[in-house]
């Protein structure tokens, strides 16, 4: 049998085609095929906290990461710096001296992913929709009025002075939607939008933004796939595809130990960082504080409402030892503002242990072997088992002669008890929903909602704390506010029901080939569009 040269050639080229196809199939294989460093897919592993991708309703960590990549906001934060918002859709803005009116000048030539231009009408529609559908994130804009003065100018007005409006308008929930498409699918922005808006289902599976990525697929139980927006107005992201994968934290650790390239994990923190190969890079900031709350109502507990007991417990705690329990990236407790945010207490002001003083204070208070029920949620938060920390607190307190009875509760029960205000002593982590620390004053100053849950009324509080809190809200420039915040925290540490144990970091773990995998306390954890390859 003879074979003609032409046939040989055809056969060879067919083989070659097949080889090329199989090679490209390998490199497009996502997580597994990233070994050669030319992959176009970035894999982000995280334990999903995801209910929706509708910007007007998004409130959960994973949703915020995705929405930040799919949509643009008027302002934004770059990298891990949350001290000052930078321009995004607005190329500049002007604040009135009374901090009530903010005028935004829109960038020209921005288009949505479908090619239609982004106008002031879209901005007004999106912000009004956020406010009026009254989803979880609506509180941040509830006092705002948004109007346009011309096609490229938007004015945001607040009833009360609020220098934090630029920060609020950097949050993913204030994203600008393509109002024409959104309306076609049921989005409404009127005063009755809470009932009339039916766009969530559409927005969960389709993105209508101008961001660097568009939504390819959405499965809230397993994965969310983003693809680069070919019409993006800004610098195009290096990865053409981003896959957010739902993965529990232990599996994330195993995956990262084997990952070779283009892979990120968002939940490995605390002690779990031990044993990760040194070839991985980490980025984190201390954005979570853990604190005890003592009930100030003598009707709930004669012990915890005693100011001397409050001081004694503060002196009994081994803050260094507790920080060590949290592992790398933790610090002993200082103030209620986590170190990541403006207004945190400077290094060197950490609380310190003094068992002898604790014992003396107990004697002064006339308390011998006081016993207090200590309630906490039986959960692991950011890689730390709260039960372990509570047991350490119990051990520390015992050395000073204070007996704590541990009372772990399922999270929902714990939250109910906390709201009920009947726990004599409790323990909880706290992360800010957006990087404005003085929102703490609205919750934790005497007489405010959270403070009342610990029975801390204005009458029971030191007048100096009340005055310091008012001073923060009355200060309109941000630098002045930060200083006032520090003063407020020092007074809070002297007499408030809150006892800050430690602060802990949230951390992004990434393979070394990546750049820009920076953790941010701004809410979206990591800006996936800024992640590139070296």
């Amino acid at each position, binding site marked *: 049998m003879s074979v003609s040269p032409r046939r040989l050639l055809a056969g060879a080229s067919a083989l070659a085609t097949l080889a090329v196809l199989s090679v490209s199939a390998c490199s497009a294989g996502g997580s597994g095929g990233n070994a050669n460093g030319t992959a176009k897919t970035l894999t982000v592993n995280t334990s999903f906290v995801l209910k929706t991708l509708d910007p007007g309703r998004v409130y959960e960590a994973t949703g915020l990461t995705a929405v930040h990549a799919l949509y643009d906001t008027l302002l934004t934060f770059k990298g891990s710096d949350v001290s000052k918002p930078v321009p995004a859709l607005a190329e500049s803005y002007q604040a009135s001296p009374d901090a009530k009116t903010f005028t935004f000048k829109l960038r020209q030539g921005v288009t949505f992913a479908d090619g239609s231009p982004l106008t002031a009408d879209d901005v007004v529609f999106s912000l009004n929709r956020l406010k009026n559908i009254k989803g979880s994130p609506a509180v941040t804009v509830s006092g705002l009025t948004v109007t346009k003065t011309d096609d490229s100018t938007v004015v945001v007005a607040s009833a009360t002075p609020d220098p934090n409006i630029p920060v609020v308008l950097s949050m993913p929930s204030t994203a600008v939607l393509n109002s024409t498409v959104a309306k076609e699918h049921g989005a409404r922005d009127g005063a009755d939008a809470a009932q009339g808006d039916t766009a969530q289902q559409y927005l969960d599976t389709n993105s209508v933004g101008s961001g660097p990525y568009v939504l390819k697929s959405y499965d809230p139980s397993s994965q969310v796939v983003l693809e680069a927006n070919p019409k993006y107005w800004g610098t195009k992201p290096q990865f053409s595809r981003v896959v957010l994968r739902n993965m529990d934290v232990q599996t994330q650790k195993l995956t990262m130990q084997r990952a070779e390239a283009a892979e990120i994990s968002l939940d490995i923190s605390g002690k779990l960082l*031990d*044993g990760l190969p040194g070839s991985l890079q980490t980025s984190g900031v201390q954005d979570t504080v853990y604190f005890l709350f003592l009930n100030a109502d003598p009707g709930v507990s004669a012990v915890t409402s005693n100011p001397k007991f409050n001081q004694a417990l503060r002196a009994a705690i081994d803050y260094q030892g507790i920080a060590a329990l949290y592992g790398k990236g933790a610090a002993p407790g200082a103030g209620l503002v986590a170190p990541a945010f403006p207004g945190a207490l400077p290094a060197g002001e950490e609380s310190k242990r003094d068992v002898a003083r604790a014992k003396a204070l107990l004697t002064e208070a006339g308390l011998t072997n006081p016993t207090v029920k200590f309630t906490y949620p*039986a959960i692991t938060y950011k890689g730390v088992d709260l039960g372990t920390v509570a*047991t*350490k607190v119990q051990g520390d307190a015992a050395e000073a002669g204070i007996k704590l009875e541990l009372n772990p509760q*399922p999270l929902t029960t714990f939250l109910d008890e906390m709201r009920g205000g009947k726990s004599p002593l409790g323990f909880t982590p706290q992360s800010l929903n957006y990087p404005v620390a003085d929102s703490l004053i609205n919750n934790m100053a005497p007489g405010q909602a959270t403070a009342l849950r610990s029975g801390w009324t204005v009458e029971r509080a030191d007048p100096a704390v009340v005055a310091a809190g008012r001073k923060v809200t009355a200060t309109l420039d941000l630098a002045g506010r930060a200083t006032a915040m520090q003063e407020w925290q020092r007074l809070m540490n002297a007499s408030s029901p809150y006892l800050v144990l430690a602060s802990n970091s949230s951390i992004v773990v990434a393979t070394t080939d990546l750049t820009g995998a920076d953790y941010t306390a701004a809410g979206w954890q990591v800006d996936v569009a800024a992640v590139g390859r070296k």
Partner: protein
Amino acid sequence: MTTLADPKAERALGRRRWLGRLRGGSTSRPVWRQPITVVALTILGGWLLLALLADVLAPYDPLAQSPDTYASPSGAHWFGTDSLGRDIFSRVVHGARLSIPLALAIVSLALLVGGLLGLVAGYVGRFVDEALMRLTDLVFAFPQIILAMAVTAAFGPNTRNAVLALVIVSWPVYARVIRSAVLSMRGDDYLNAARLLGVGPIRALRRDVLPNSIGPAIVLATLELGNAVLLLAALSFLGLGPRPPAAEWGSMVALGAQDLSMWWVSVFPGLAILTVVMAFNVLGDALRDRLDPRYTKGR
């Protein structure tokens, strides 16, 4: 052979039947002489001894924290230390004081409740039987651990409620076993004879029915002891058992499972659970082999 049995003799014969089987009857060795049973009994005996002498044997206070955290096993700390610097050997030894008595309590309470209800259901019959058996169906319909979790979560997690929850999920099996034993002897001559002689139902249940039906339930209880240890550890692993800082094996495993690179934190309490559960199961199996007619055939 007589067809009209002497009630007293037959009753006595019935009562002795299962005790006799334990001794191996006339053909084989007693159950406690078989090698595997001996091993199981030795392990259990060892654990009981450890539990009794925990205060003497444990080198440290099981609750005492120290700065020496996550120390690997060494001469000073045989099983290492945990995240709070507590000595794991001392905690494992003290854990026996919780797990074994609690397992015994769970099984005896379940046997008591289930046994009584089974007796009543089998002896009275009719609608009482129907109602009680549907109740057991209801409990059987849920996986044991899920139902136990629900009960503990509802009442609040602590030792008493964990025990209560496990009793609630485990009594029906005894009720069923006792009921079927009672049903099988309902028409027996000696019971009829006793009734004709004017013996009341309570007395009949106590003197005639219970002694002759309790055998299989006792075997089952031995098998269930291992299960009780395991379920209690599982509840405790999930944070629904004895409150921290109690040295309970399940919660110790949970603590270690947070970071498996410190293997000793979870492995030693895990081994404790393993040995106790295996020993109870082997013992239960041996008893069953000997007492249950279905397993003695063909030997």
